[in-house]
């Protein structure tokens, strides 16, 4: 079965990203496919490579990056939500005249159409938020 996952909250503050991560791993362990993980609202803050969590804590961003590259997950960050909150890749940096990027490996920035497409293509979509 084809799953899609929507994450609406950032790392650490709400449990949403943690629960979504454990859910995503279980989806793959059950032999299902993940069509896409979409990051919206504060969820875009999961995609910054600039975090340095305490050494005895989980590294939420790294965990997603590694899952994406290991399992060829498509992890999409909403461009409008990312602009409001300061998540930037090379293209966005140039387009908006910024002087740095912070997007972590394994994520890409794209439009809300990617979320609607996930709703259309996937058999199930699950929302994790606050």
């Amino acid at each position: 079965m084809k799953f899609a996952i929507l994450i609406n909250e950032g790392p650490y503050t709400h449990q949403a990203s943690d629960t979504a991560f454990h859910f995503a791993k279980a989806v793959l362990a059950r032999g299902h496919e993940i069509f896409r993980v979409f990051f919206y609202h504060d969820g875009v803050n999961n995609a910054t490579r600039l975090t340095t969590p305490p050494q005895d804590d989980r590294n939420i961003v790294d965990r997603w990056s590694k899952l994406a590259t290991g399992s060829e997950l498509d992890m999409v960050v909403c461009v409008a939500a990312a602009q409001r909150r300061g998540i930037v890749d090379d293209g966005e940096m140039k387009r908006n005249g910024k002087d740095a990027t912070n997007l972590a490996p394994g994520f890409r920035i794209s439009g809300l159409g990617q979320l609607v497409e996930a709703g259309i293509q996937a058999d199930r979509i699950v929302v994790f938020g606050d």
Partner: protein
Amino acid sequence: MLHIINKSPYDRPALDSALQTGEGGILFTEDGVYAIAKGGAAEAKIKAAQGKFKFYALSADVDARGLTDRVMEGISVVDYGGFVDLVAEYKTNQSWL
């Protein structure tokens, strides 16, 4: 359909709202699991709705909140794999955020 509730019944109206609106299954995750603790004020709400709904709770969250030994009767405790199975089993799901 499957209703996913991640909010404490003492802090948000998510459980009340789901009970009054839907039918099918209710899965408690995150702070939602406080609903299924024996002795709490939410217990009566769940009992009253056990004819209309099937109730599930995510084990990782039950354990994290120290409720392992306090799960009321009639609640199926599932792990993350069971969460996936429930989503697959019900045609649609709604997160009551």
